[in-house]
């Protein structure tokens, strides 16, 4: 049971400066079956990060419900792994210790958890960096660590909050290709938040277009895998899909 169900989710909060009630997320319903990769795409302020923070249990929801594997969300938990835009690696832990952190919290012994960490680091081609500290790595490498740190804990759902927004464009394309490769290897359930329409379509099985806290439309991405940018850049289907999503979020 690794599916995610969102029913009539809303988030309102009181803006102390404006003195008014603000609705960030309005009646969002979404069903993500096990091993599906969905992207939620929309402009800044559309409520996509708020949705992710509610799924992660970082902020309380105002109404509706979120079920992960049939269980309602109540605070953060290891069934939902999170990859942050700011990486949020622990600077005082080596790369290996960062990746082994989740297994450590589960009470797995040192030898076993380091074996797990090495296996995941190899998956992201990071074996060489195991003994280094995060501040000694490039941004792209840091986020690779961020992704495998979340995956090494074997969450039911992987939540990714604009994870590639703060790396350069070339590195971003490499990371996107690597993520699809890792996804195919491990098949986790993924919720991927982004404002980049091309990225959303490239990665996902399904794209959810969001605007002003509401779901506009869900678009199924029927592109074959494995996906690489060299193929998709000229692909007519890819162009049509991105065009469609772009039109949705821009005209909303």
């Amino acid at each position, binding site marked *: 049971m690794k599916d995610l169900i969102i029913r009539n989710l809303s988030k309102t909060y009181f803006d102390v400066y404006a003195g008014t009630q603000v609705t960030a997320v309005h009646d969002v319903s979404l069903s993500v079956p096990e091993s599906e990769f969905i992207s939620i795409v929309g402009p800044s302020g559309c409520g996509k990060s708020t949705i992710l923070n509610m799924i992660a249990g970082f902020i309380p929801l105002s109404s509706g419900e979120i079920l992960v594997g049939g269980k309602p969300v109540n605070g*953060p938990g*290891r069934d939902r792994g999170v990859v942050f835009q700011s990486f949020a690696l*622990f*600077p*005082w832990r080596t790369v290996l210790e960062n990746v082994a*952190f989740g297994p450590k*919290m589960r009470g797995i012994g040192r030898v076993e958890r380091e074996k797990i960490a090495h296996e995941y680091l190899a998956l992201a081609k990071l074996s060489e960096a195991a003994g280094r*500290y995060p501040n000694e790595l490039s941004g792209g490498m840091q986020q690779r660590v961020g992704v495998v*740190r979340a995956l090494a*804990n074997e969450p039911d759902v992987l939540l990714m909050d604009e994870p590639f927004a703060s790396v350069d464009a070339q590195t971003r394309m490499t990371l996107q290709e690597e993520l699809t490769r890792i996804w195919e290897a491990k098949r986790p359930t993924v919720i991927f938040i982004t404002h980049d329409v091309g990225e959303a379509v490239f990665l996902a099985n399904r794209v959810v277009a969001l605007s002003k806290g509401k779901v506009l439309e869900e678009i199924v991405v029927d592109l074959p895998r494995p996906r690489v940018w060299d193929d998709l850049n000229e692909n007519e289907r890819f162009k049509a899909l991105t065009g469609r999503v772009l039109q949705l979020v821009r005209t909303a």
Partner: protein
Amino acid sequence: MKSFLLKVWSRYVRLTARWPSIGSIAPFIPVIAAWWIVTELQIFPRVFLPGPVEVVRSFGSLVYTGILPEYLQDSMVRLAVGAFWGIALGIPLGILVGLSQRAHAALWPPLLFFQAIGDIAWLPILVIWFGYGLTTITVIIVYTVIFPVVLNTVLGVRSISINMHRAALSLGASRARLLWEVVLPGALPNIITGLRNGLGYGWRALIATEIIVGTSGIGFLMFDARRAGSVVEILLGMIILGILWYIVDGWILAPIERATGQRWGLVTR
């Protein structure tokens, strides 16, 4: 001439790279030389300003009679005991105030208030309460060490990004585990800064307290020497103060800082 100086300088840089201790001693050579020249020229009467040779001789005789080692030990133990309690109380208090809004609201104003009442300002009332002795000295040191430690710990705890907490929680850490895995290491660079300030202030407060209420220690040595009119011993006491701090900072605090905050990229080198 210029190339000669450059050559000498490059020699010096290479030498200090190989033996860093030379780099920490060499800058004092001109200071001592100037001191020596001034005393040799008899600009001031010898009784008012003795030279380096007399100070070294006085050091030798005070070590020989056992007075200096004993006083030194007394001062160091007092500072260590005071520092221990200052840290043992200061870090948990700082973490509490840093994490809890309520604790912050209740404790921050009194913390600032009592911080303003400097260590020495407590002496008159402490002498009435505890008399001239170790209790008074210890209270003063703990009082002096604790505030920089608490205030910097609070700052450190509050500067940890919320995403650090969130990352640890979503990786399965319990709230209690968070304290050890995130809060303490995240605040550590600030805690060390607080310790550095606290011990520095504590060291000064100790000497001042020993001068006023002490019966032993480096501060007492200096004050006692004044009574006997021995400028040599006063100078010796001052030099020892400087050297001791240099050792505490350079051999204990700085290496800890290099191994933690600097290594992690949380503190710039």
